[in-house]
């Protein structure tokens, strides 16, 4: 419409410099001009103000239309998001009174876990489901049955996938630790208190009658819990990591105080567990793991978890996930 008016009233010739004529102005401004025209006795500045006010009233409609489009997009985006995370949010049962900013932060963490869960291969989903059940029982102070190797692998995959996502979002140690601290605090008012999830009594459900084979793996990975598994299954897992039984015996030195065969352990870790992580960082991981095994704290604190995560290269975390999910063999 405005364009049509503009066409109808468009000047045939360009107005000469200094000969500006109101009738040559495009029709979309007719109302503003009309108001200015009615105020001939006003000062020039007042005329500008009258024009501006009328004009902005006219174009306010555009802003209103934008608000409508934005509100529609937000509502539709919420539907897409809710469809993916509503179940997980419901399971987490965060206190409704939690401040909105904390709720959003918590829900982002929940979304990471839910998405990570979806990335665990289909054939491992049953094991993941039963592992989650055991975890829930343990959090609720029940004593679940010992975990199977499949459950340990599924839960290990879920943990590492979640850690990888968390690390990608909070990509330096300070931000990561701050985010973990915040999550510890907020999750305290939910069904899954992070501090409890990372407590030794809960983690213990993934660490049962450990034979020497798997104990070695657990020592190396520290946050991928061990399992009371059949020796045959353990050997299969060892092969995936390119670990020999001698390597496993070497790795056992990590739980001694002082640590035994430190350089040999570092060499095994470099060869089989963290091939893309440099030696200095591997030694840091070993020190942290040794401290955990010797001191046996009640739970893994945020600083320890941060130190572990940032001393391991992302490509090695990815590799561990691939091994646990069976996507990669050494």
């Amino acid at each position, binding site marked *: 419409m405005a364009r049509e008016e503009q066409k109808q009233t468009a000047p045939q010739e360009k107005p000469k410099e200094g000969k500006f004529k109101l009738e040559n102005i495009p029709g979309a401004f007719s109302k503003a*001009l009309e108001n200015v025209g009615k105020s001939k006795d006003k000062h020039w500045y007042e005329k500008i103000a009258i024009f*501006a006010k009328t004009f902005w009233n006219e174009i306010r409609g555009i802003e209103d*239309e*934008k608000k409508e*489009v934005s509100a529609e997009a937000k509502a539709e985006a*919420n539907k*897409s998001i809710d469809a*993916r995370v509503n179940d997980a949010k419901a399971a987490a049962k965060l206190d409704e009174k939690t401040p909105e900013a904390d709720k959003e932060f918590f*829900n982002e963490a929940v979304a990471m876990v839910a998405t990570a869960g979806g990335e665990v291969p289909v054939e491992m989903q049953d094991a993941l489901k039963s592992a989650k059940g055991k975890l829930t029982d343990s959090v609720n102070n029940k004593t679940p049955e010992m975990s199977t190797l499949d459950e340990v692998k599924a839960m290990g995959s879920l943990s590492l996938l979640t850690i990888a996502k968390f690390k990608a979002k909070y990509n330096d140690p300070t931000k990561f630790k701050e985010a973990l601290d915040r999550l510890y605090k907020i999750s305290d008012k939910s069904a899954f208190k992070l501090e409890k999830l990372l407590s030794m009594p809960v983690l213990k459900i993934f660490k049962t009658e450990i034979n020497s084979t798997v104990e070695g793996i657990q020592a190396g990975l520290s946050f991928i819990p061990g399992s009371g598994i059949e020796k045959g299954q353990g050997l299969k897992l060892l092969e995936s990591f390119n670990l020999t039984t001698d390597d496993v015996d070497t790795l056992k030195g990590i739980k001694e105080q002082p640590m035994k065969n430190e350089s040999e352990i570092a060499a095994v870790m470099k060869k089989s567990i963290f091939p893309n992580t440099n030696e200095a960082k591997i030694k840091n991981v070993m020190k942290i793991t040794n401290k955990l095994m010797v001191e046996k704290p009640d739970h893994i604190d945020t600083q320890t978890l941060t130190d572990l995560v940032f001393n391991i290269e992302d490509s090695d975390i990815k590799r561990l996930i691939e091994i646990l999910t069976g996507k990669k063999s050494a």
Partner: protein
Amino acid sequence: MNKEELKKAILGFLPTSTITTHQKSMIEIILPGMNEEELSTLYKTLSTEHEKMEKLNEKQKRAELKYKMMVDGLNKLKK
């Protein structure tokens, strides 16, 4: 569009979309786990918003240009 193309297109809309920062974060997080149907729905939401906003922005830009022209014109009248 296949799944990967849809994901790429959705991520491309996020910087200019008017949805909240939290919604943008959530979309970035859940995107890898979305199926094709969910991706198509989200793509439609964001592409529609983008298209409508583009038109409105253009309309506003034109209006503002005309406003500037008017102010210049009135300035000349004053002289």
